[in-house]
């Protein structure tokens, strides 16, 4: 994993209250709850450290009030962090002037909002081309690009509709198209599917994965739904009371939760949907008769029918196709029964 880092955030604090900045500057080394309370301050984000790598889907997961929305707004510089540093493509985001920020947002960032935040007086086409419009892109050009985006999210025939005439799912598709029209390097999605019905939500998640397969954006995705996080994320940051409790891949979270709090979430997640073959395979691949080959990144649940049909073991291949281990029916059964994982 040596992908380059797109956004690097170190020691980030967002504290609300009188003279927060002054207070923090004085005692960054050790801030505790009582000291904050004494100064009538509330910390929405506490000492957040994270690195977003190019091309990954980074999910920030937390319940309401955990500070995830505040954190993402600090990262997109919609609000100014009280302390800490954010470097985006090597540039210091916190020290930027408003003018520079406008430039960054126009060219390099896109954001999708929980309640869509579409402009009620504009049509779908006008909404999607709005970010280009404010940059002063010519009408013909911006409409061509906006149409591309509308096609991409599958709303081709609704270009002239107004937001109020669309369903929630359709509105969010418009929101997605709008956030992508500037071809952003970093794509923020703030609980994009939380306001939708469960069925639509599932459909939109698939849609999102399909888009990402095509576009390979760097994504920061906010959600309060752990299952959604597990489904979509390359890596997850779990937040509680403004603090990042753990940053890990979905599999690591499930197999080795850092705290009881994280474990509480993972309890209801079927482990077979998260654990990859590479984690449970018997290492080494002796010569012999195998029923077939499986990629190491497959999840247990994906292969259970196939493996269960025969008593013979399967070979597990790594990214390059080299055999690195084996799995068999017995192994899968023991995982599914929830028995202790190997090692």
């Amino acid at each position, binding site marked *: 994993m040596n992908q380059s880092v797109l956004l690097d955030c170190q020691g980030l604090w967002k504290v609300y209250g009188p003279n927060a900045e002054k207070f923090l500057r004085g005692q960054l080394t050790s801030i505790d709850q009582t000291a904050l309370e004494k100064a009538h301050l509330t910390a929405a984000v506490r000492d957040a450290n994270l690195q977003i790598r190019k091309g990954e889907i980074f999910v920030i997961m937390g319940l309401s009030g955990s500070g995830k929305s505040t954190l993402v*707004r600090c990262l*997109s510089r*919609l609000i100014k962090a009280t302390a800490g540093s954010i470097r985006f493509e090597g540039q210091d985001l916190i020290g930027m002037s408003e003018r520079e920020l*406008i*430039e960054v*947002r*126009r*060219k390099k*960032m*896109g*954001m999708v*909002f*929980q*309640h*869509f*935040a*579409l*402009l*009620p*007086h*504009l049509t779908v086409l006008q909404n999607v081309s*709005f*970010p280009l*419009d*404010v*940059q002063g892109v010519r009408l013909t050009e911006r409409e061509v690009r906006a149409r591309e985006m509308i096609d991409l999210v599958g709303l081709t025939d609704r270009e002239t509709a107004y937001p*109020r005439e669309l369903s929630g799912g359709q509105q969010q598709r418009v929101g997605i198209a*709008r*956030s992508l029209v*500037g071809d952003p390097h970093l794509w*923020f999605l703030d609980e994009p599917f939380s306001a939708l019905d469960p069925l639509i939500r599932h459909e939109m998640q698939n849609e999102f994965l399909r888009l990402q397969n095509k576009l390979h954006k760097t994504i920061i995705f906010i959600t309060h739904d752990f299952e959604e996080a597990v489904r979509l994320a390359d890596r997850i940051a779990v937040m509680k009371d403004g603090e990042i409790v753990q940053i890990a891949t979905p599999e690591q979270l499930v197999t080795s939760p850092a705290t009881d709090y994280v474990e509480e979430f993972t309890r209801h997640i079927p482990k077979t949907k998260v654990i990859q073959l590479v984690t449970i395979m018997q290492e080494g691949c002796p010569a012999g008769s195998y029923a077939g080959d499986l990629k190491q990144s497959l999840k247990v649940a994906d292969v259970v029918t196939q493996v269960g049909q025969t008593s013979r073991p399967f070979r597990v291949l790594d990214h390059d196709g080299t055999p690195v281990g084996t799995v068999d029916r017995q192994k899968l059964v023991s995982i599914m029964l929830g028995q202790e994982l190997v090692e």
Partner: protein
Amino acid sequence: MSIHFPNGLRKPVYFWLFLFTCTWLLSNYSFTLYKALGARWIIKFPSAWEWQLDVWISSFMTWLVEDAGFGLFTFRQLTRFLSALIEAPYNAMRALLADGFNSGLGQHAVEIFPAMSWVAITLLLVLLALCVGGRSLALLVGGCFLYLATFGQWQSAMVTLASIAIAVPIGVIGGLVLGILAYRSERFERLQRPVLDLMQTVPIFAYLVPILFLFGFGPVSALVATIIYAMPPMVRVVLVALQSVPEPLHEAGRMAGCTPRQMMWRVLLPSALPTLMVGVNQVIMLSLNMVIIASIIGAGGLGYDVLAALRRLDIGGGIEAGMAIVVIAIALDRLSQAFTKSDSSPNQSFGFVRSKPLLYFVIALMVTITMALLGKVWPVVQNYPEPMVLTTGRFWDEVIKWININFFEVFETVKTALLTYFLLPVKRFFVGIPWAWGIIALGLAGWRVSGAKLGLLCAALAGAIAANGLWREAMIAVYLCGVSVLLATAVGIPLGVWAGQSESANKILSTLVDTLQTLPSFVYLIPVVMLFRVGEFTAMVAIVIYAMAPALRYAAHGIREINPQVIEAGKVSGCTHWQLLWRIKLPLAVPSLLLGLNQTIMLALSMLVITALVGTRDLGQEVYIALTKANTGQGIVAGLAVAFIAIIADRILSALAKSSQARLGLVT
């Protein structure tokens, strides 16, 4: 914040009971007390302590008009410049709608281009109505303007319309500018808020005098007064509309890379447009409300007709011209409301007014020219034919006469009974309250509902009224206003509750209230004076009718807004219909009822001053006398006193509404 009252007064009921008993005792025995102690200061504010505020203001105005200057130009030149700035477009508009464009003066005038013909104006407005509101609106608007033509009100109506057409854009743009400034800078907003409060609570009559001083008698003064009166709500609406744009839209705009200016003009204002249109509607309605009053300082048109008719006691003429104002008000109100709504349901076939305003303009120009040419051939097209004018003046005269002959006894009995058993005792109570106790009691009340800050404010405002030697007049105003508000809520709230529960009742009542609210306040006086002649009773009736609307509307709103699940929970618990109303709906509607009461008081106070024309003896009369004597200081001081009463009532009731909302958990 914790205030420590003696234990017995902790419970609100006991506190208010205590306050009322003290007030009643002091009011009843203040005269005896004064006789016994020989202390005249008890009932009369010592004249040695009185401020000379009115004198100062008057001399300041004189200085301003006669001597003040800014170096390069004098103050008088400034007002002349402003006056010219307003007069030019007004004259053009008036020529276009009513008088025609002439060159030369008087006898030697040569008509260059005639005024728009009545056919053209009616046609264009009907087309506009068709575009924004569909066929029924077109019928209504067409009917209204045909009424103006057939009943011989056309010429006056067009003069009035011309002044509205100038006052409204200035009011809207001014409101927009001030509203945006207030939104951008919190400091400006803080500075502006008390000024707006005062502008909305000081009665119109009070600032007619200074305007008269600055701009002279004539249509310009009338326009300035109209704009000052109609603009403050627009400022507030703009501010509220901008502030209530949801936060995610701000964020979306910023993430799209909007500059602050793009943010304002591309995101905030357009998405706040429906609310802004409500403000525009307000400006139109308030401008119309001013039509009659503005004619006191020189506006011509319908307002002048009504005023002149009232002065001649020409009942029929007054009603006819008054009806014409009402008709214009209804037409303009519905038109501007349709603009607000048509945003959400664009009329496909005629939607072009919205998307291509230029096309409408071209059509308008063509129709105007065509009609002007046709008018040369057939004069009927240019001016509605004189012989076909109908008049209803006679009819109204007869109706009033008939009612007075047949029902005189009944009216008289009701009037006397109410006066003797209700109005006079209440009056005696209020007038008897010694000024010193009044100040203390208001201070205590403010303290109780919100805290020391409000208590001090209430006491200070009451003190200022007393210090200007207006305590007695103020108390008469409070009595008249209080009695009227009591009656208005006693009628309005039950009706509102009814409308809140029954869809059909709501339909009828809300149409009625909407219509009543579009009437300029002055119009209410006409029939009431005809039936009850002059006096406090007449004033009260007019105030009650005028001020009832918000009580009704807020009550209906409060009932309808209750979470239906709570009502279902009540039903499931086995409440009867009445229990549901008394135990669940009414308690939950209390904040709404209080807000309605607040609005009722504000309307009552604004009407109070107008009823000075029918012979009351309160602050309103004081203001009106100042107007007739052109005494700036007296008018402004009495006007401020009315404003102070309004502010005290508003702050106390708002605090009550807020705390009751908090108690019910309705505050987010």
